[in-house]
């Protein structure tokens, strides 16, 4: 790998094309996904924030009163505001100019944009240090991870924090040799802080890397040292952006920031099925993020990542092995390794709250993709030198072949991305045999919308199980579910009852049996033969509304 190469206009053209292409693809496939549980909360928050923003524009003095701020911003105070502000502005713009074909897209677009920008950034960082084919491979390998593709659609924070996390690391890395990047590192860190708490681990990773580089430089006797200008910028600008973009903490700043931190340090434990056990209290097995990565990231990318790490092994040698006069670099590989491992290790800690979903360590995957590219380039370069000198088409063919499994699996995973498992787990049925989590957030309801529309042509009601009423309202706003099919608050009053299949939801399945007096579902949504949702028909419903009865 190079220490750093200046990027050309052509590099940014490729990055921009990746960004635009991915955002268009996400936009065109978003209507297949009902809003997830968390999205519906963020949409509700964004609407409240949008109302406050409108007030700020029309009556700023009133908007800035504590009562007004607290009224708008007390909802969903457990997450900082940046992305929700983005959702709010996007929605306001949609209200004004009708920018999007679907209301849900107005909220989802800002996060989709960060997904596109993340591809651009992966390409840019890759192209700075390696053959551009590798950079392109890294961006596409990341884009075609099934779980990444699912999360990239959502009005949530997991893909945005992956972008800002990497942007901070990139700006820091640039600033080591060029102080002009230090303010940008501060800004990027602020945006990361204002996006999600995964950002808290960044200073630790960067300090370890910085110390690593400085010790090497000192032992090698270099007079030029990596600049530490990034640190004061991050310390000064980061909190300013966090607080500046989050009106909730403008009053009682320390108390509310403390509550925010405490919420995440003492987070509730979710119930999550892993290898046949439904975990609901710690300790969660240390293996979770690693096994889930093995089961959900395409195997080819993982193998190439391992080869990449092996290829770069010399760069990981301890600073103590450096001798006077040795050449020094920014040890980019060490920084990438830190950024890849820290998110995985944070979740692996037995004391960490039980989350389970891969989204919690998605920040690691851009760096995994870059190591995969290193591995691929190692093979390609060796082959071009040793096997078929001068011929490039076999390399291009290999690159395409290595991207194909991810692309094929991603296409098949949509719109049930959280239920998808790679062939390493035996696919979706193999994962069911192993007792792996099948879904969460209730978003799979979008996949039964056509069945419900057909079953309730004259309207009716549905008990939604794990889907929120907010997510249902968005399906109605998007025109996917007619407004006369309403959400029922009780199984007993519903025409149809949904049950999302997860082990701890069996309780709900049994409730439906007793409530409706039947164990026979009217429909079972399956994915590769594995039940995702059962729909029960209420025998007491007005059957004259059934389509076959006219």
């Amino acid at each position, binding site marked *: 790998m190079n220490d750093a190469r200046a990027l050309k206009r052509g590099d940014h053209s490729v990055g921009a094309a990746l960004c635009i292409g991915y955002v268009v693809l996400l936009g065109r496939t978003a209507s297949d996904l009902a809003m997830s549980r968390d999205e519906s909360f963020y949409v509700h928050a964004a609407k409240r924030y949008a109302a406050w923003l409108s007030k700020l524009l029309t009556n700023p003095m009133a908007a800035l009163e504590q009562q007004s701020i607290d009224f708008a911003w007390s909802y969903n105070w457990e997450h900082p505001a940046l992305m929700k502000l983005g959702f709010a502005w996007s929605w306001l713009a949609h209200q004004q100019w009708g920018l999007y074909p679907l209301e849900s897209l107005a909220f989802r677009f800002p996060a989709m944009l960060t997904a596109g920008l993340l591809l651009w950034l992966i390409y840019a960082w890759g192209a700075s240090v390696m053959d551009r084919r590798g950079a392109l491979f890294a961006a596409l390998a990341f884009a075609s991870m099934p779980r990444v593709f699912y999360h990239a659609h959502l009005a949530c924070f997991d893909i945005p924090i992956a972008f800002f996390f990497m942007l901070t690391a990139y700006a820091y890395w640039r600033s080591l040799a060029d102080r002009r990047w230090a303010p940008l590192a501060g800004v990027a860190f602020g945006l990361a802080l204002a996006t999600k708490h995964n950002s808290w681990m960044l200073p630790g990773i960067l300090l370890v890397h910085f110390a690593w580089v400085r010790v090497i430089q000192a032992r090698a006797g270099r007079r030029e040292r990596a600049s530490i200008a990034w640190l004061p910028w991050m310390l000064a600008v980061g909190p300013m952006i966090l607080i500046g973009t989050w009106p909730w903490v403008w009053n009682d700043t320390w108390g509310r920031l403390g509550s925010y931190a405490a919420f995440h340090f003492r987070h509730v434990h979710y119930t999550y099925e892993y290898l046949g056990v439904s975990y609901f209290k710690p300790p969660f097995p240390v293996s979770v993020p690693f096994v889930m990565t093995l089961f959900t990231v395409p195997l*080819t990318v993982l*193998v190439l990542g391992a080869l990449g790490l092996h290829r770069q092994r010399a760069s990981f040698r301890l600073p103590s092995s450096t001798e006077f006069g040795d050449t020094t670099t920014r040890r980019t590989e060490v920084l990438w390794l830190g950024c890849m491992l820290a998110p995985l290790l944070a979740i692996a800690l037995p004391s960490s709250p039980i989350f389970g979903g891969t989204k919690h360590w998605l920040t690691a995957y851009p760096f995994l993709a870059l190591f995969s590219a290193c591995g691929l380039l190692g093979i390609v370069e060796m082959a071009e*030198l040793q096997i078929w000198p001068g011929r490039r088409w076999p390399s291009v063919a290999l690159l395409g072949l290595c991207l194909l499994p991810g692309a094929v699996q991603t296409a098949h995973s949509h719109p049930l991305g959280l239920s998808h498992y790679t062939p390493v787990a035996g696919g*979706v049925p193999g994962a069911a045999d192993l007792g792996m989590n099948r879904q969460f957030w209730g978003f799979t309801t979008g996949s039964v919308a056509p069945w419900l529309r057909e079953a309730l042509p004259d309207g009716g009601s549905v008990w939604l199980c794990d889907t929120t009423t907010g997510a249902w309202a968005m399906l109605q706003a998007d025109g996917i579910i007619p407004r006369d099919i309403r959400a029922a608050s009780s199984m*007993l009053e519903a025409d149809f009852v949904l049950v999302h299949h997860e082990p701890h939801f069996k309780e*709900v399945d049994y*409730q439906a049996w007793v409530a409706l007096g039947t164990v026979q579902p009217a429909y079972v949504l399956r994915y590769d033969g594995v039940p995702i949702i059962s729909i029960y028909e209420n025998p007491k419903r007005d059957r004259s509304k059934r389509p076959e009865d006219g």
Partner: protein
Amino acid sequence: MARAGRKCRVAAWVWALVAAVASFELIADVWIRAQVPADQSWEEAAAFVRARIGPNDRIVAAPSWADPIVRFHLGALVTLRSAAPEDSARFDRMWELGIRGESTREDPPVLEQRFGGVRVRMWELAADDVAHDFVDQIAHAKVELVQGDASRPCRWVEAPRGRGGLGQGPMAPDERFVCDPSRPWLWVGPTILADLTLTPRRCIWQHPVGPEPVRSTFFDVPLGDRLVVHGGVDYENERWRAGSPVTLRIWISDRLAGELVHRDGEGWSSLAIETSSLGFDRATVRFEVTTEDPTARVFCWAASTRLTEAADE
């Protein structure tokens, strides 16, 4: 020269290895999807079972995650009793619809037939004859809260039910004994419990109120040879393993015949009481539930009197 040749070989091997991994992943993905049984296979298997099933047969799925698919095809033949049995000793035969080579039993079946990717297997079981099912008969029982030397009767009424949802516990039936409207959990009636292993159990909800018992009395019960009792606490509560033990005392004709003490972590517990030596065929049977601390003691029990095959002869 030799070193260059070795490098070339290594490069070729690594290249081929990576290409093979990618190819394997593509082929495996296609192969896995191709193994999924077609709807037609399920329908044919269901038709086969439907034509042969008896009134006291049970239908199961293998692996268990395929259960909703089996119920989709054959649910009309599955009663709440067979979907959520207290034990498997009550059925004449068990039909299993299995995929992926999975099975719920290791012993050879008496019948086996394949329909594409779905395998139907049937076992004959040594079933007990049930003389009296207490869950079926709960509406005819007398239910009361014991308070010192007195007792307060609970009325069998149509009462409001829960809405359903995660953490809401077993669904109340529309008709049940209501003991205290101000304590909505204090009712007695049939429902389905998710036990500690999340297995469905059809049983009688009889939430204890404390050291003084909640009592259900059944009159003129045919005793058979054995009284088989099961009990457990709802999964959401028992999984924490922090609740007080629950005691279920069984009285036959005013004599304490048995005691089932359920401790968290034990799951669906059972007790068998020999009744053949009691000297009478019919009796009054009382079930009393107590606990030291009733917090989150969503206790549910099932019981039946049974005749063994030998007794029949």
